[in-house]
């Protein structure tokens, strides 16, 4: 029988890492304050999360795919807010 605990471990790990990302998203969403956020860093992060999903699918790992999907969503939101904020500044 396949062991269940590595998956449980992966799920807990994913909850910890993905949700520690959430305050940043909430802050950027509520305040629209994305001044301190590095655009390059988030672009690299997006590529990394995408590749992690491909890797997770290849090794058939549910936690890796699930939580990197979540990370991709969060990072995407932050980056979208950052880019939009920059657009506002340029228009001003």
């Amino acid at each position, binding site marked *: 029988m396949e062991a269940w605990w590595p998956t449980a471990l992966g799920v*807990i*790990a994913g909850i*910890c890492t993905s949700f*520690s990302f959430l305050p940043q998203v909430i802050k950027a969403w509520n305040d629209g304050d994305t001044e301190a956020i590095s655009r390059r860093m988030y672009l690299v*992060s997006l590529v*990394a999360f995408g*590749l992690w999903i491909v890797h997770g699918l290849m090794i058939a790992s549910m936690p890796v795919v699930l939580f990197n999907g979540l990370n991709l969503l969060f990072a995407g939101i932050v980056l979208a807010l950052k880019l939009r904020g920059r657009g506002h500044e340029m228009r001003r």
Partner: protein
Amino acid sequence: MESVVPMLIGLIAGCLSTYSFVPQVVKCWRTGETAAISLRMFAVRTFGLLLWTGYGLAVGSLRPGLQRAQPDPELNHPRAEAPRITCLTSRQFLAPEDHRNQQKACRLHRIRSQSMIPFGQLEIGNGPSVSCGANTNPIVFDRICKAASEESIPCRVRAAP
């Protein structure tokens, strides 16, 4: 080598996600300014990354499916499988009430479970019986079973322990 591609993608992904973390470290290191960083969130994240390390180790070393992705050429030889199959089938046929082992043996040999008979219970009229045991050539046994199932010839498997 199909296992190289996911490993390579994982390595690139790991490099990028670690690299995206570098500016933060550099900034904190240079300016010594960490007031904007939430301690609790960083503690949770560090704990999470620790758990990911545990997950990675567990998945890499314990999941049989992943180990099978890198076949050992020595083990690929049909002869190397013989002692395991023989042990399993002998035990199964001697203890026919053990259904899980029975299913396992059936899968290993690609035979129907109904065609298995307990040791010593050969009935006339159900087709020939094929022996399996320590002194049976496992390759010939497999081929007989395969040919029988392909041609729909009724045959039983008998253990010769």
